[in-house]
């Protein structure tokens, strides 16, 4: 069962990612990214990360991507015109990425090849909101506070940047 779910949603994620790269229209890319996020959320659930899966759904898919779509609609961004500049990227890009992929895969296999299998719910509830919150507010309290400050700064920056008149 785990395997089926994994393969289904992994395939979904990869498919959506590919479509993100290939689609020429931003909205299409955004929707496929949402697809990726959704399927990743399911995979998180498989990995026992209930809280993080929901956070993925709420924060990423629910808020950030809405922002993206919002902006795309606002700017009424159309499809990309064909004909890339910077030709050399075409040639070095693809092989480079394939090599990179291969290397990572090689390392993963050599390092983690023979690790245990993922069984849903086999581990204790380390991913439950309770435990995540516990370590978030004890061990990682300082980073948490710092992030809140970061968010505040981001809000200010966004406001300053997106003001109507730059005076």
């Amino acid at each position, binding site marked *: 069962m785990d395997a089926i779910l994994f393969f289904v949603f992994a395939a979904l994620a990869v498919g959506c990612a590919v479509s993100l790269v290939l689609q020429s229209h931003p909205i299409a890319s955004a929707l496929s990214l949402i697809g990726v996020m959704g399927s990743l959320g399911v995979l998180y659930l498989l990995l026992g990360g209930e809280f993080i899966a929901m956070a993925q759904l709420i924060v990423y898919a629910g808020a950030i991507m809405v922002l993206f779509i919002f902006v795309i609609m606002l700017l009424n961004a159309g499809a990309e015109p064909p004909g890339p500049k910077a030709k050399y*990227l075409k040639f*070095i890009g693809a092989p*480079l990425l394939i*090599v990179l992929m291969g*290397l990572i895969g090689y*390392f993963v296999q050599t390092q983690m090849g023979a690790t245990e299998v993922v069984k849903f719910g086999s581990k204790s509830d380390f991913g439950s909101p309770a435990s995540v919150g516990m370590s978030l507010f004890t061990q990682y309290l300082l980073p948490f506070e710092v992030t809140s400050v970061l968010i505040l700064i981001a809000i200010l920056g966004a406001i300053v940047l997106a003001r109507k008149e730059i005076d």
Partner: protein
Amino acid sequence: MQLWLIPILPFIGFLINGLFGRRFSKPVINAVAVGSVALSFLWVLKCFMAGVPAEEPHIERYFTWIASGDFTVGVDFMFDRLNSVMLFVVTGVGLLIHIYAVGYMSHEGGYYRFFAYLNLFMFFMLTLVLGANFLILFIGWEGVGLCSYLLIGFYFLEKFAGDAGKKAFIVNRVGDFGFSLAMFLIANHFGTLDFGAVFEKAKAMPVEHSAGFLTAVCLLLVLGATGKSAQIPLYTWLPDAMAGPTPVSALIHAATMVTAGVYMVTRSQLMFNNAPIALEVLAIIGLATAFFAATIGICQTDIKKVFAYSTVSQLGYMFLGLGVGAYSAGVWHLMTHAFFKALLFLGAGSVIHALSGEQELSQMGGLRKKIPYTFWTLMCAGLAIAGFPLTSGYFSKEAILGAAFEHHEWMFWVGVFTAGMTAFYVFRALFLAFFGEYRGHHHPHESPFVMTIPLMVLAALSLAGGLLFNIPHWLEPNAPPEHEDLKLKIIAIGSGFLGIVLAYYMYVVNTNLPVKIANTFSAVYRVIYNKYFVDEAYDSVIVHPLEEGSRVLLWKGIDAGMIDGTVNGVGHTARGFGKILRWAQAGNIRGYAAWVAFGSVLVLIAIGLVGGSK
């Protein structure tokens, strides 16, 4: 017993008044300022009722402040017999003076600022008294210095006030410098700053073996004490400090802050006991200060200046007491002095208030009828400071002089002579102010009760304080009662009487005698009147060379030349590198990304080759 509440309460008062006081009405500000101090006084009372440990101090450790290696300094407060006395003096007298200030400052601007500073001072002073290690004490030490600076310069619109503040601050720096050096030595040598541990180790060191080190530490501490407690050679700031409002002079520059040095030395008596040389120095400094300050006090014409110099000289007494090993007597005098000197200043303030700002003795006179409360209370204070029998000053001064007699006889005689002079100049001031006929042109009016009631309380204390609180017995319950030497007492009392009588004769009966004397010994008079030209000497010897040196060498030479040059040089080099590296900035983001990917590939390959992944 939650000692931390004692200093925190005034601090809260400070925060409230300092932050929002501008919008508050005066009653609110009074309530906050006085109320907070009253609360902490009550808390002190509660702690006292809870019982004061006789031998081992009660220590509360709150949290570790500094931890570097095995050297740690905690924020710890302690409570024992010694600082219970100090706590009562600080909070009690402080409370009275707060109440008094409500009346005195009622016409002043910056009302909330004044009370905020006053509360802040209480906070630091209490921290100083409660601190259980040298560093906490030092925090209080510096804090009270800051507050004294702020309050001396309270009327910052007048230049002399600002200058006086700066002077106090800078002169204190010298003392603090000595204090910090002493702390460094202690930390370096004993590896701790905790009073208990330090004194244990200090006691453990035999005198002959420890002499060098301990003497150095103690002398540095003495330097610090001379700075804070206005002793030779660092006393010059205190008379100028009278530029501040009178309650400030009473609270900070008479009752509490200037006695911090005495408290600090007493606190570390175990260390001083093993450093006889330092003690000797302390005694001599004290004695000299007492004497010279008294001589200067004789010729001052500003009522507050007179009392300022008498403060210096009384502090000298305390140091003398400490120096001859009679710590408890010193603390006793500290307390009684807090009573009658605060009273003297508050009374002077009341006079000044009555004459709407007039401080010159020459403009007073004959106020006896006009402001009776002030007159009578001030008389009590005068008797106390003159050592009139059974007043508070009598007991403490007797104790000190007795100890001095056992130590060195000549110290006793000098002390007695100084006592006589003290009585003389204090009563000179009082007679000039209250007897004869009125020479001023303001219309004197008695101060409101909010000012006179603290005066009365303090008068009662300075009369009965010696009988009520037997500090030596409190501090050393099991010390042998020193034998009563009647002869000495008689001599001391006699000198006091002599001073008073002489003052009465010169300034009430035969008022043109002083002028004659001044003319006959005009040279001496001028020298003394100008305070032995000490300030001028300091200026020409220390201040001017410093200024010149800083301007020419430090600013023009080092700052402008070396530092700026270096900075600019760095800038130029960076520019040069930038020129070279600029080609990489193609401005094509995707190109950058490709390069990053390429780099990561290289890194991965490298890891693979090295086998670092295994």
